[in-house]
């Protein structure tokens, strides 16, 4: 069974009285442990697709099954629980909580599932160690470099052991060295057996993935598999 199965998915946004079709009939199937790049110019519907896959939004029409669950039929709190259980997010601008230490940021998703504090701290420390930031656990986000922040965000995405990691332009705000480290981490996450989806407009990043899905005007125009170089 595919982890992600989208059939004829449409998404329309209402804007100033009119509606805009952000996605027009997307059909997409992604199996477990795939490493997929989603590319396309701005306005192509990448973000909308990512929001749908990430269960932050539901399709206007069509069906989306995530791990066999029909996302379109879920209410807000079930969507939240599904996100918490199944998906790890990595954002372009890191989206760390500014007043919390790196460790507490990483532990935050566990708060929403009611994990006891001691457990949370232990697992957050483990996740930070996995991204090589064990010694930065008590630092606030503003005390960390951009690359370090993104690695904290990756640790946060991993702390719940999600089946799917969604990375939205994860290296968009990083220098080349940090980019390299972050991508190496994503490669590692894929090797662990997780499904990794990277939205990017950088060809360099897309080339690392096994599969490249290209969007244009709300439709998939190319879906190519290849072995990473």
């Amino acid at each position, binding site marked *: 069974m595919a982890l992600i199965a989208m059939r004829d998915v449409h998404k329309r946004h209402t804007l100033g009285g009119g509606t805009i079709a952000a996605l027009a009939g997307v059909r997409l199937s992604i199996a477990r442990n795939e490493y997929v790049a989603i590319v396309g110019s701005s306005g192509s519907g990448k973000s909308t697709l990512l*929001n749908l896959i*990430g269960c*932050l*939004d539901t399709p206007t029409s069509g069906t989306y099954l995530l791990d066999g669950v029909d996302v379109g039929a879920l209410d*807000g*709190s079930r969507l*939240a*629980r599904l*996100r*918490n*259980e*199944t998906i790890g*997010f990595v*954002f372009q601008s890191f*989206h*760390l*909580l*500014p*007043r919390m230490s790196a460790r507490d940021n990483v532990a*935050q*998703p566990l*708060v*929403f*599932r*009611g*994990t*006891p*504090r001691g457990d949370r701290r232990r697992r957050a420390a483990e996740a930070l160690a996995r991204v090589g930031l064990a010694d930065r656990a008590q630092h606030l986000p503003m005390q960390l470099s951009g690359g370090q922040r993104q690695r904290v965000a990756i640790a*946060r995405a991993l702390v*719940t*052991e*999600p*089946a799917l990691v969604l990375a939205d332009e994860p290296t968009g705000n990083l220098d080349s060295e940090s980019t390299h480290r972050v991508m190496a981490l994503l490669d590692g996450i894929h090797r*662990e*057996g*997780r499904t990794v989806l990277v939205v990017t407009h950088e060809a360099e990043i897309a080339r690392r993935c096994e599969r490249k899905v290209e969007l244009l005007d709300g439709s998939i125009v190319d879906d190519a598999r290849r072995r990473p170089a």
Partner: protein
Amino acid sequence: MRGLRGGLHGAAARFPDRLSTLLEIPRSAVASLAAHGLRSFLTTLGVVIGVASVVAVITLLNGLRSSITSQFAGLGGTTLAISPHTPLKEALAGRRARLAPADLELITSRIEGITHITPLTLAHDEVRHGSRATVTQIRGTTPTYQDVYDAFPGIGRFLTPADDAKRRRVCVIGDETRRAIGLPDDPRGTYIALADEWCKVIGVMERRGQLFGTSQDDHVVLPYHTLRSMAGHQEPPDLRIQLTVTDPAERSAIAARIETLLRRAHGLGPDDEDDFRVQTAEEIADAFDQLAATVTAFVAGMVGISLLVGGVGVMNVMLVSVTERTREIGICKALGATNRHVLQQFLAEAVILCLLGGLVGLLVGAGVAAFVASLIPDFGTPLPPPWAAGLAMGFSALVGIVFGVLPALRAANLDPIEALRHE
């Protein structure tokens, strides 16, 4: 692969673990309030002031009430006090109701079941000894005063029937008055000047302390007829009458009989108001309670307004906080926070903010009450009654909930995508 599936199932199993979440909410609420310490403090000022004022007033009234209760305890359930009372209409016409010696004689001769009865005339005048003088209360009364008021001399003796009958120029003085005019500890046999008449001191009353901040030991007690003869009958005497009844159960019946008797004696028609009052010690305490209730209601009204203002302040700051933290809310939602998580978080912040305000208000109120009490001698140090403390905290929490709901709902209903995009 094992860790991945295990993680999913483990997560599902851990979701019902509510206790940890319950503890987590106040913890992170406190953390985010602490992040804006000054703002949080200023926000709660309204609540602080409201709670502090109600706690201070209730504490003081409570302290006053207990000191009154202990004062009246000595009078017991057998005392009746009769005092003149001028109805408002009469007072406006310039008349003043009085109780006359005839009233005293009438009650003494016509009412049965009285153990002791004593008249009391009150005046203020200067007493002098040597070069020292003080203005004090002059009480004219009879020997039964001791039994009726439960007040006895500590040194020397009280007035005797013979003192009164022979209009002897003798007096018993309060300890405060004794000090004021520089008499020795045992002033028996000393003469003091009272309105240009000499009076021999025969005793000093036992100390009674203070009531309502007024000394109860600053007075001079003379035989009733002595005082009347000194006043030279120029002015009609103005009496208060205090009596004790033999059977406490008969007291209200006796009070009613006295009322009927005096109304007839004063020639009052059926439509006229009483020009006197017959009160029990309890009624006097009740009158205080009524006053206290009025004051409390008034303060409660003021506090209600101040809590309203405080609540609006809290709501305002919470709304600002929701706007400021829109992106954080979006992040938390992406990470799996439900609307309920967010609602609880913001509601908890509002409630904790108000509870902290309530707690500070409680402490400030208790402090103010203690300070005011320290200015009143013999008042003791009143503590806020537990029910007032509970009420203060309860109201604070209620304000937090009522005024926190709107901002919390606004936060909870934010769309995660919009919220994440928020700068």
